[in-house]
């Protein structure tokens, strides 16, 4: 391993998830293996009318079970989801977590709107329990989560549109690199709420039939909700064989607030920055998990960005939002978990809900899951409102 990687790499110690696929990593992994979509049709109030939408809702029975187990936070789905994902990540890390004293445990939360349902209730002058109201403020949600997880080290909260998750992982790695913690729990969470639905509806960004990333007839995104959690640890705390986070990069398009740059140059810059930090060349990347919202402009822009970095052929890549929807501030964390799963199983995930690849998308788009001939390094990218872009590189530590 080169010195650049040695200097900055941190290890993945555990993961946890709550999504439309269900509670925990296992149902998510089953959905990925089966190339299945957990998007469901449901009636929702959009504007002044009730309409049918396709989205990745966390199943109601799971919400009810989480509420029953934590009466104090029953009014804050954002907390319930994030805490459940965090508990699983910590449990998966096992002895690593237990061995680190609480003052050396950090937490970074990523979210765009935290417990936004409380705002919907306040505006409608409905009663809101105090804890749900408090967790409308993202940093207070992060503080409550840190207290529940007994993380008494540094706590941060990142809120940067749809790159929040990758930024939170970047910040978690930075806290470790700076020696401020031994382990950092990175959690991402967001909800499908009246607020969020109304927003994407007013922008006409929702595909009424559900998203079809990189499809030639794609017409918009599907929202999703849930939480992902990844425990990052100083590399030496995790037993080999290890998966490492070796590089991150961000950029801004400096172009448009709600639309991606037309040439993909901003996303390409973020990818170049991540590659540089990891000390890797494009040819060393074996798989890419794209942002892949299913909107016409985003997927086109991503295709251009990938070609500008990799040329032809682009490494195998997929879009995951057909599985559980666009989970906004949780997306970067949940989709990175899919990359971890790919590296662990050596299985490349497919692109659920893809019908016919848009010719603009590179031919290496994976429609179905398949075993990887080689899978050592993965690139994950996300883009967001405000012209933000982020990229992250995971790799299997070489013996």
């Amino acid at each position, binding site marked *: 391993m080169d010195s650049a990687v040695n200097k900055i790499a941190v290890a993945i110690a555990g993961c946890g998830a709550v999504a439309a696929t269900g509670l925990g990593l296992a149902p998510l992994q089953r959905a990925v293996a089966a190339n299945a979509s957990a998007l469901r049709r449901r009636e929702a109030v959009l504007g002044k009318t009730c309409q049918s939408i396709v989205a990745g809702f966390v199943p109601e029975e799971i919400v009810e079970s989480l509420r029953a187990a934590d009466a104090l936070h029953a009014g804050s789905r954002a907390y319930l989801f994030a805490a459940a994902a965090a508990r699983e990540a910590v449990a998966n890390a096992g002895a690593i977590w237990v061995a680190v004293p609480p003052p050396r445990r950090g937490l970074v939360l990523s979210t765009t709107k935290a417990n936004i349902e409380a705002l919907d209730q306040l505006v409608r002058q409905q009663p809101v329990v105090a804890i749900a109201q408090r967790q409308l403020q993202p940093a207070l949600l992060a503080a409550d989560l840190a207290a529940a997880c007994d993380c008494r080290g540094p706590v941060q909260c*990142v809120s940067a549109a749809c790159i929040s998750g990758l930024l939170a992982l970047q910040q978690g790695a930075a806290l470790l690199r700076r020696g401020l913690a031994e382990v950092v729990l990175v959690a991402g969470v967001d909800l499908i709420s009246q607020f969020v639905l109304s927003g994407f509806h007013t922008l006409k960004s929702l595909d009424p039939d559900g998203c079809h990333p990189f499809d030639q007839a794609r017409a918009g995104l599907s929202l999703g909700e849930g939480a992902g959690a990844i425990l990052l640890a100083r590399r030496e705390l995790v037993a080999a064989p290890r998966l490492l986070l070796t590089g991150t990069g961000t950029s801004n398009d400096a172009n448009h607030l709600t639309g991606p740059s037309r040439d993909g140059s901003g996303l390409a810059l973020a990818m170049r920055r991540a590659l540089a930090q990891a000390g890797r060349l494009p040819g060393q990347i074996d798989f890419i998990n794209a942002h892949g919202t299913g909107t016409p402009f985003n997927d086109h822009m991503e295709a251009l960005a990938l070609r500008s970095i990799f040329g032809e052929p682009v490494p195998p890549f997929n879009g995951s939002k057909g599985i559980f929807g666009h989970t906004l501030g949780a997306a970067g964390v949940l989709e990175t978990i899919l990359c971890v799963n790919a590296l662990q199983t050596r299985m490349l995930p497919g692109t659920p809900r893809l019908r016919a690849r848009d010719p603009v998308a590179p031919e290496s788009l994976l429609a179905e899951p398949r075993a990887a001939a080689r899978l050592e390094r993965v690139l994950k990218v996300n883009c967001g409102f*405000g012209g933000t872009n982020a990229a992250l590189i995971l790799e299997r530590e070489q013996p």
Partner: protein
Amino acid sequence: MSKHAIHAAAYLGPEGFGNDLTGLRPWPAPLAGPFQRGELDGLHWSLFSASDPSRFLRMDLMCRLGYLAAELLDVNFDALPDASRDRLGVCVESFTGSLDTDIRFAQTPRPSIFAYTLPSTVIGEICIRFRLKGPVLSLIAPDTSGAGALTEATEWLREGGAERVLCLGLEGLNRATAEAINLPEYLRPPAWHAAALLLGHEENTPRARPLPSGSLVEVCRRSVGMPEPT
């Protein structure tokens, strides 16, 4: 190793506005009272310049605060070579975030408002205005000091992630917006402000000065000549 230096500093708050060159100036009399009461609708570009950019009129409160603070730095970003501008990071921190716009959107959903219901949108506006490409970071904090953004900015400089960093601490919530939904006091910022620092490495220029200790807001207030709060 090069030390970190302030290349420019600016501050807007109920007390007035200014930068490290001008010092603090009072608001025009008709605005001073409302601003001190947290009534911020009068916070317009026209206070600083006769030519209103059309973008400014579309912006929400947080973007206006950030945009004005960045302009008030009085730095000619356009004069920087592209290579330097591509290494100029933007780091924003806030307790309040986009809450003012969130409340307005929840009351009346409109597409033109939705893009502003994110605390990071201000970064997009600033990057568009000054043609900056990042790196970028948007933090939500449990307080209004801006301390986290300043820490991150200095770390970026130390680690080589950026050559310069535009570092902003932004707090603003119209009193009427908060009162319309009876927002609890603890979710409101104690006062509004926009604090901006352009940080870089030590340079032999008249304006550059060593970065003192203190939070972002404290450093900016001191830089415009405001006395320490008692």
